[in-house]
């Protein structure tokens, strides 16, 4: 079913990388886990949102008197009832804070919130929506970036000429000189589609505003701290007066760390009627009015030597930003940066990215954060170049790949890199498969990814990650973290790091997360940052607590100063004489007494310094996907896959495997199944009948060879895993088709019809 092998594993650990159950497991397999979706508060009302039927329109007037008059309706809110604050997660840059979650005078996409109702039942709220009269002045809409930049295109946001929202420029070396020296230059245009996050739990929030001016919010999100900060802005409140509780979260994938209509509307409504209000998006609302992976148009031009040495690349990208910025500005930068990955460009690299507003669903971050699009284009082009030059695609990649100690000029330093071994592992796997059946081929794709972002567009005054470790008299541990578990297993990972560091058992550790009142600020779960950043904070907090414990151990041990003590698996012992020692719980009691009853408390913080512009560390991977194609119908089937993956030191064994398999399924969907077609700004498949996602029968084995490297910046040498693997798969599928028939797929996802047409085209050319 699946093979998981670890290359050069480290064995010095007692908890790390052992078979530890997910700490939330019991709750999740017994139906006990309660999500925002399940929250019910006394006196709670149910909210519904009225959404724009127009892609682009001015709101002349809204009359909700009839709705208010409906029995059971307690409050109605429109943009006029709000501060009308334009918000965005790029708090540092006012230009990019462009979204009012309840629009005041203009709608820019179909599904944008126009008004919200709170009533005693969901059904009444829904009836009330029909009674709200909105007078629109419909404006001309524009839906594709290449149309939106035309002179005659309608202006979506005032003052944004040609609807250009953000531009990004990345450059190092001398690209032009590179092209002058190149033996071979290849240029291609690509197109990458959008993709829905499709969290199983749709956007949901329960807000309770109380007369003391405090606001408590249950919300399904990836970063309670961000929500607290952003809500303070749009509600005109102090962060400290807002408590955000994120209970179990039903998935995020990059779509839940911005404010959404649910959290804002419930807060506004609750403040109006002083009662808790709950809004849960329907699946259709989640499709048309959340956000999505950014669709992109890619131009990539690459210059090489005939021996396959990569000299230079120039990329120009237009992204369909949709109606608002969201995290799109970051995706725009990262796609440009990762389009250079994982290769060394001898002469230089240049990227110009343009994010264009359109009257469609806002685009934002989604697992991979711009990199899947970048790799879809880059890794296919690399494959084609290797074929054009008759070179072995693996060896050509290998000779150009990043290496330990390489510095991406002005961008990043690579402190650990296991990609070289990845090539070996995939070669072994290909060899082990022998001759493939007719209609089968293996496609390859390499890439790398970041371990958390260094950029602080959110402008937080706090350190990026914080943790508090408190030891009770019986040796149990309260671990308070701002890190958010959205299913990826961060609670478990943090518990493991804490137990390993402190020397207690995993079951001694209770993880407290997802509540801004009780946990320290942390930027939360995005950009694969938590294992490295929150992990470092937890490690330091545990070390701090452990140091305080050991002070007492030393004091009572009377050991010669040259001997050192440690705690492992609840055993306090001399490192040179492990058999000599005492019980950890006993030590905790004594230490407590010694501190006149104060509990031992350790604090840890982490913010990356001197680590370049992007990220403190980078993971690397090479993936092979065996694809079967029905030549007559163009239907694609994934038969098998192998990923050689370098995530530094694995921490959470089960979690890691789950993340890699899960990323594969999502990435494969992006490659050949998941598309979001728009007609005049209307999403044509906002439901799970017409939006296709991989299901169990379509999922191939996702074999993994984990290359253990040591990342000096990561806790115990750990770095990113699980998000980066969303990057290679689409290109690998494309490359399999290329290998099979020599057809070059330039648009993803690859529909069977596109395969059939490409084959027809090829035959036509052949004649």
């Amino acid at each position: 079913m699946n093979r998981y092998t670890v290359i050069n594993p480290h064995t010095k650990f007692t908890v790390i990388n052992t078979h530890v159950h997910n700490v939330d497991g019991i709750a999740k397999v017994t139906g006990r886990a309660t999500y925002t979706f399940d929250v019910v508060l006394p006196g709670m009302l149910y909210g519904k949102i009225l959404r724009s039927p127009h892609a682009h329109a001015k709101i002349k007037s809204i009359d909700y008197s009839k709705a208010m008059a409906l029995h059971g309706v307690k409050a109605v809110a429109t943009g006029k009832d709000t501060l009308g604050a334009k918000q965005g997660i790029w708090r540092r840059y006012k230009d990019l804070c462009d979204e009012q979650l309840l629009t005041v005078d203009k709608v820019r996409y179909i599904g944008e919130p126009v008004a919200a109702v709170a009533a005693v039942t969901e059904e009444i709220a829904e009836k009330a929506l029909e009674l709200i009269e909105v007078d629109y002045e419909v404006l001309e809409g524009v839906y594709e970036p290449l149309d939106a930049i035309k002179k005659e295109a309608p202006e979506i946001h005032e003052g944004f000429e040609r609807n250009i929202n953000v531009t990004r420029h990345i450059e190092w070396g001398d690209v032009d000189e590179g092209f002058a020296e190149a033996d071979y230059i290849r240029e291609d245009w690509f197109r990458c589609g959008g993709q829905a996050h499709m969290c199983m739990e749709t956007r949901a929030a329960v807000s309770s505003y109380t007369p003391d001016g405090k606001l408590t919010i249950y919300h399904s999100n990836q970063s309670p701290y961000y929500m607290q900060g952003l809500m303070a802005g749009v509600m005109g409140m102090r962060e400290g007066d807002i408590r955000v509780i994120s209970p179990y979260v039903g998935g995020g994938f990059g779509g839940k760390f911005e404010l959404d209509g649910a959290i804002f509307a419930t807060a506004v409504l609750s403040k109006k009627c002083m009662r808790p209000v709950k809004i849960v998006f329907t699946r259709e609302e989640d499709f048309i009015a959340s956000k999505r992976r950014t669709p992109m148009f890619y131009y990539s031009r690459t210059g090489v030597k005939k021996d396959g040495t990569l000299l230079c690349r120039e990329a120009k990208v237009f992204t369909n930003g949709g109606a608002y910025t969201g995290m799109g500005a970051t995706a725009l930068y990262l796609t440009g940066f990762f389009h250079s990955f994982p290769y060394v460009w001898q002469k230089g690299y240049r990227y110009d990215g343009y994010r264009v507003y359109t009257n469609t669903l806002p685009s934002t971050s989604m697992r991979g954060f711009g990199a899947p699009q970048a790799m879809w284009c880059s890794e296919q082009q690399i494959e084609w170049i290797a074929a054009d030059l008759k070179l072995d695609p693996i060896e050509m990649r290998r000779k150009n790949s990043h290496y330990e100690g390489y510095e991406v000029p002005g961008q990043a330093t690579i402190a650990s890199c296991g990609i070289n071994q990845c090539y070996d592992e995939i070669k072994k796997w290909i060899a082990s498969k022998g001759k493939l059946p007719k209609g089968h081929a293996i496609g390859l794709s390499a890439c790398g990814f970041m371990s958390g972002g260094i950029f602080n567009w959110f402008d937080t005054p706090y350190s990026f990650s914080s943790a508090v470790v408190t030891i009770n008299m019986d040796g149990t541990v309260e671990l308070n973290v701002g890190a958010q578990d959205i299913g990826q297993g961060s609670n478990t990972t943090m518990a493991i790091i804490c137990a390993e560091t402190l020397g207690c058992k995993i079951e001694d550790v209770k993880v407290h997360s997802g509540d801004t009142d009780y946990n320290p600020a942390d930027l939360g779960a995005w950009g694969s940052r938590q294992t490295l950043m929150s992990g470092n904070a937890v490690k330091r907090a545990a070390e701090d607590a452990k140091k305080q414990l050991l002070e007492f151990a030393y004091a009572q041990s009377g050991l010669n100063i040259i001997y050192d003590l440690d705690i492992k698996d609840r055993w306090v012992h001399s490192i040179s004489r492990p058999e000599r020692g005492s019980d950890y719980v006993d030590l905790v009691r004594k230490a407590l007494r010694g501190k006149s009853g104060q509990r031992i408390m350790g604090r840890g913080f982490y913010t990356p310094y001197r680590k370049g512009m992007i990220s403190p560390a980078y993971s690397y991977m090479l993936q092979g996907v065996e694809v079967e194609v029905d030549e007559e119908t163009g239907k694609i089937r994934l038969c098998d896959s192998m990923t050689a993956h370098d995530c530094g030191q694995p921490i959470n064994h089960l979690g890691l495997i789950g993340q890699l398999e899960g990323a594969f399924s999502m990435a494969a969907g992006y490659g050949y199944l998941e598309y979001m077609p728009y007609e005049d700004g209307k999403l044509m498949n906002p439901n799970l009948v017409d939006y296709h996602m991989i299901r169990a029968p379509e999922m191939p084995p996702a074999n993994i060879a984990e290359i253990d490297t040591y990342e000096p910046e990561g806790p115990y040498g750990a770095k990113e895993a699980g998000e980066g693997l969303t990057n290679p798969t689409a290109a690998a599928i494309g490359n399999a088709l290329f290998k099979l028939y020599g057809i070059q797929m330039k648009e993803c996802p690859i529909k069977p019809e596109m395969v059939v047409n490409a084959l027809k085209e090829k035959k036509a050319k052949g004649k």
Partner: protein
Amino acid sequence: MEKKTLTLNVNNQDYELYINPKTLLVEAIRDHIGLTGTKRGCDTVSCGACTVVVDGLAVKACSVLAMQCEGMKILTSEGLEVNGNLAPIQKAFLDEGAFQCGFCTSGMLMSASAFIKETKGKVTEMQIRESIEGNICRCTGYNSIVRAIDAVLKGKYAEGKK
């Protein structure tokens, strides 16, 4: 609107309900009885998050009228464990890490346990995959779930063992 009284047997417990006849089984279980383990992920009978077992058959509780289940035995994820002891499939889910966000897990468990119950003799991996075909999981990529079901079918959690 005329309400109806209905006796619903969930996890071997009779519940007297007084409901609007349009109430869906999932609504009866979650909103009226208060067992929130069963989730809802769509309105199109697609995602399977609401899967429960009715008279031994896995069904999607979002596309069944509660009224139609009078006199039937309904099993939800809360009913899998027997006084504190997890069912084999629950243990297997823990061992294989066959869940991440956990939102699809209750439905997934019900499809799996119905399949395990009705399965006699050997099954192929594809049969296991088809047994959870009606359940979407966005997190795991399914393979860990398939491994968990396989482990139970292979008797890894049978009485006496483990």
